[in-house]
Each structure stands twice: as C-alpha cells, then as structure tokens.
C-alpha cells in the first residue's frame, strides 16, 4: 500500500512510446487522514452544521450520507475551505488547516470535486487536467518570457502525465474537445481526473454517481477503487446506496446538521435513527 501506484497499468502498456508510470503520492504515515472536531457553521443564525466531529482513517473510503439538507455539502465546503467554520477545528494529517484558504489546502494533499461538476468549459479536456498540476514553473508570469526552457520541460512532463490520467478515466478519445461538450457522467470523470493530477492524499467526492448512467458509474467506481489501492483516502457524499455499499467500509450518517452515527453501510441502513431521519426528511 505504500508503493507508488501506476494509474491503470492496463492502459500504460498500451501507450505508444516509452512507458510513463503516473505516480500517486505515498500513503501518509499518520493513521488519521482527516479529523473534524466540533465543527459548526451558522448562516444567519441557522446552524447548517452543528458540532460535527469525525475522523477519516488514512487509506479508507468513508461515505457521508444523510437526507437532503443534512449539512453534508456544507461539511465538505468547510473541509475544503470554501467556507470558514464558525467554530471547531479541522486537521489534515495532524496539521490544523481551518485557517488556510481553499487554494492552499490542495498543497496539503486535500482535493475535492463538486456536486454539480465545474469544468472549465471553453478549455479542452487535457487543459482542464493540466491546470491542476502542482509543479508548474510556467504559472509564474515572467518565467514564460525568461525561463522558457524550464517551463517547457515541466510542461512536457505534465502533459505526459495528464494524458495518462485522462486515459485512465476513459476520456482519451475526447481529450481535445472543449469540456463543455462532455456529458454529465464524463464531467464527473473529468473532475476526478483533475483532482488526480494534483496528487492528493485525500479526495472529497460530492455525489460522484448523481446523474451518471450505469456503465459510466461502473467505470467511476472501478477507478475509485484503483486510486484507493494506491493509498489515496476518500470521503464520499452519495445517495446511491449501491455505490456506498460497494466502496465504503464505513459510513457517517448526518441529519439536520449533526452526526447521527457511524458504522458499516448495511448496519447503518437498518439503524432506526437513520430510518427515522430519512423518513422524517421525506415527510417534512
């Protein structure tokens, strides 16, 4: 589990030219990848997230489920830094990150996808993925004018890796198309490819199965498993219980901003409090 992962060895063998293993980061040594401690978030007095605490162990795939309005996406936004918690702390690999702006959390190994995918519509699929590369001397304006050789060397390496990742998520055939041309399911795959490019240790997936046809869903689940085997931890918001049952060793159930419980998906699905929360939510 600690060795570098080749993203999809099957496709690497088919790549023409030299084999380019795309490596993913090694598993973190700390057992706790993510610790959310007494985190609350209020909007104008309404507590969308109310004293939520949980731990995501390194190397696991944990589901975050609950009825609509339970505060799952708000919790994601707090972890990712899109929102600031009203109180509480968030630790990533033992380091507090709650005061870090969103754009710095990815450097700490945290990546997220969005419930409604946010592709860079006018940019090609390949360029969407390239944006996410972490090592880019060419992102400094002047380097492009005065250190072109450096920029080009890294850019070529990034392009090679981005193409591997694009192929890994089955988007190679559309890599030159603008992202706006992709279907809903392909956009989910593109989001996954983008975060992979950033070499994350923990990936937050917000409803990866929503609006995806069964064939693509199978691809998405298989890719998540492969990435996880390479040592990447996942926290997944999902309503599709097939996906949750197959991927998640454990689920955390939220309702009305609070954590109701935690356990194996099959156990939690029968938990009376959970059943009550879903039915109560449906009745309201």
């Amino acid at each position, binding site marked *: 589990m600690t060795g570098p992962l080749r993203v*999809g060895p*099957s*496709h690497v063998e*088919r*790549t*023409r030219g030299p084999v380019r293993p795309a490596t993913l980061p090694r598993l973190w040594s700390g057992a706790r990848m993510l610790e959310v401690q007494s985190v609350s978030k209020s909007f104008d007095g309404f507590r969308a997230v109310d004293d939520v605490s949980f731990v995501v162990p390194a190397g696991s795939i944990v589901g975050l489920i609950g009825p609509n309005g339970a505060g799952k996406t708000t919790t994601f936004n707090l972890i*990712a830094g*899109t929102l600031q918690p009203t109180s509480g702390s968030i630790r990533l690999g033992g380091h507090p990150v709650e005061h870090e*702006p*969103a*754009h*710095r959390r*990815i*450097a700490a190994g945290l*990546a997220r996808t*969005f419930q409604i995918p*946010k*592709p*860079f*519509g*006018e*940019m*090609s699929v*390949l*360029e*969407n993925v*390239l*944006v*996410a590369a*972490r090592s*880019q*001397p*060419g*992102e*400094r*304006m002047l*380097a*492009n*004018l005065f250190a072109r050789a450096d*920029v*080009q060397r890294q*850019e*070529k390496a990034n*392009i090679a890796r981005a*193409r*591997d990742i*694009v*192929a*890994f998520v*089955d988007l*190679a*055939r559309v*890599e*030159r198309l*603008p992202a706006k041309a992709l279907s809903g399911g392909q956009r989910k795959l593109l989001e996954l490819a*983008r*975060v992979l490019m*950033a070499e994350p240790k923990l990936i937050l997936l917000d409803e990866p199965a929503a609006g995806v046809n069964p064939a693509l869903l*199978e691809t998405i689940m*298989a890719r998540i498993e492969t990435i996880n085997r390479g040592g990447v931890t996942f926290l997944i918001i999902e309503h599709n219980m097939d996906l949750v049952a197959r991927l998640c060793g454990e689920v955390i159930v939220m309702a009305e901003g609070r954590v109701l419980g935690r356990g194996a998906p099959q156990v939690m699905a029968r938990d009376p409090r959970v059943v009550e929360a879903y039915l109560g939510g449906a009745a309201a």
Partner: protein
Amino acid sequence: MIDLLGYGAFFLVNALIFGVLCLGLNLQWGQTGLFNVGVAGFAAIGAYASAILTTPEAAERIGGFGWPILAGWLAAMLIAGAAAALVGLATLRLRADYLAMTTFGIAVTIQVVALNATALTGGPFGIAFIPRPFASLAETPIAFNAANLALTAAVVLGLFLVLETLTRSPWGRVLRAIREDEAAAASLGKSVNFYRLQAFAFGGAIMGLAGAMQAHFIGFIAPDNYLSILTFQVWAMLIVGGSGNNRGALIGAVVVWALWSLSSLAVGTFVAPAFQARAAALQIVAIGMALAVILLVRPRGLVGERATVSRDVEALHDEGAPAHEPVRD
C-alpha cells in the same frame, strides 16, 4: 495619392494605439474575465504621466521634466500598472457587476481630477507641446506618419508576441481557468485573487502605454479625451474583433476605428454644418449597430472562434500524436 497614403499611415497609427488598449482589455476581460469599464481612466493616467514627465518646463504647472519619450512611455506603464494594482487590491474580490461599477466610477474620478487638478494637468486646457516621436519630420506629414507607423507597429508587434506567449503559457491557462470557474480554480490550488491582480495590473500598464503613445503622437492631451466614450469604443473593438483572442483585439481595433473615421467623414460631408455637432452622435449609433450585427452574426467576434490552447499542448497536437487508446474494461 501621397495624401491618401499619409492619411492611411495616420489612420493606422491611431487604430493600432487603440489596438494596444484592446490588448490590455483582452488580457483583463478576454482572458481573465475581469469586467473593467474604466479603460479610459488607465489610458488617462498613462497619458498624463508621460506628458508631465516629458514636456519642457512650463511656468503654469508642476512637472515638465523634459524626459526622453521612451522613458515617459515606461513610466506611464509603471504608474498606470501601479494604479491598476491599487484599484485591483481594493476591488478584485468583488463580483463582476460590482467590479464594473467600481472601475467606471474610478475612471470618472480620474477624468474629473484631470479636469480640476490644474496645477498638475493644466485643467480643461490640457497639456500641449508633448514631444512627438520623429518631430523633425513633421514638415513632411507623410514621412512623419510613416515613421510613427513603423514605431507603433513595432511596439504593437512586440506587445502582441509577449501577450501571445503569456496567454498560451501555463500562466494564461490559470487565467482562463479562473475566467471559466473561479471556485474550481481555487479548489485546484490557484490563488484566484493573486492571478486576477496580475492580469489587472498588467492590463492597466498596457492601457497606460497606449495612453502615452497616443499623447505623444498627437502632441496634446485634454481631459475630454478620456470620457467614457473611449471605454465604450475599446469594448466595442474587442467584442467585434473577438474577445479572448489577441489577433481579434487588433483586428477589431482597426475595423471599428475605420467605421468610426468613415462615419465621421460621412457626417462632415453630408450633414449641414449647423447640425454637425448633433449628428456626431450618429457615430456612436454606427458603432452600436456594428456591435449588434456582430453579436447576431458572429457572437464570438470576427476571429474569436478558435479556442486558445497552451503552446506545448498545441505542439503535441501538431505533431499528430496519436490519441491514447481508450481503456477497455
């Protein structure tokens, strides 16, 4: 014939200077999505900065340092760029519509300051005797205009190449990502505000350069040059030419400036002198019509269709690199 050539050169110098303004706006709006409606303000800062620094000493106002023209241009870029950076620090966190209102207000403020800070700007009378490049040729207009055209074209070419390099680099890719979806760009580790600030400041510097170039070519500036009609013209040029495309920015500038000049000629020729001042408003109508037609017929502008692709990615495509075999499960 000679007259016509001379006029052609004069026309192109003016059009290309507008092209520089468009290149600045294209970096801000076309690439980064920053809704700057204060173009005239940054052009004014550049024009006044360079004029104050390069004019000979004058009794009635501060300044008149007699610097060389080139130094004036560079200072114009620096000062306009710094002004844009300051404005950017204060406003770039705002949503696009608020940014538009703020930049509009700032441009109006700059124009009013130019009008009233008489000791520095000469007030409503402006600044005259701004040194002109190739002034020694002024006796023969065609030579003067041709020399200025060569100089202006060289500056535009250099700027165009720099901007093409930048927009097709990883840096430009981040700008486009921010333009497309700011939250997604931030989630991928890009400091949205920092990149916006860079694009806004550099764009402002380019607008300042254009203001200075125009001031030196004409030799005279006054606050009336920097009313919001200037901002409108530059926006029309960029949209007609093709927002997001540096070639489009330049082509739009030439096309719209041609339309503007022709409609001015038409008003002068066909409208009775007593009504000419009022008929001048028809020029704005003409530009508005052109804008409407372009938006209907070619919504992405004359040459705006081609998506910008990073240089090394495009090289890959040009090599005809085979697409990866799709993975079959």
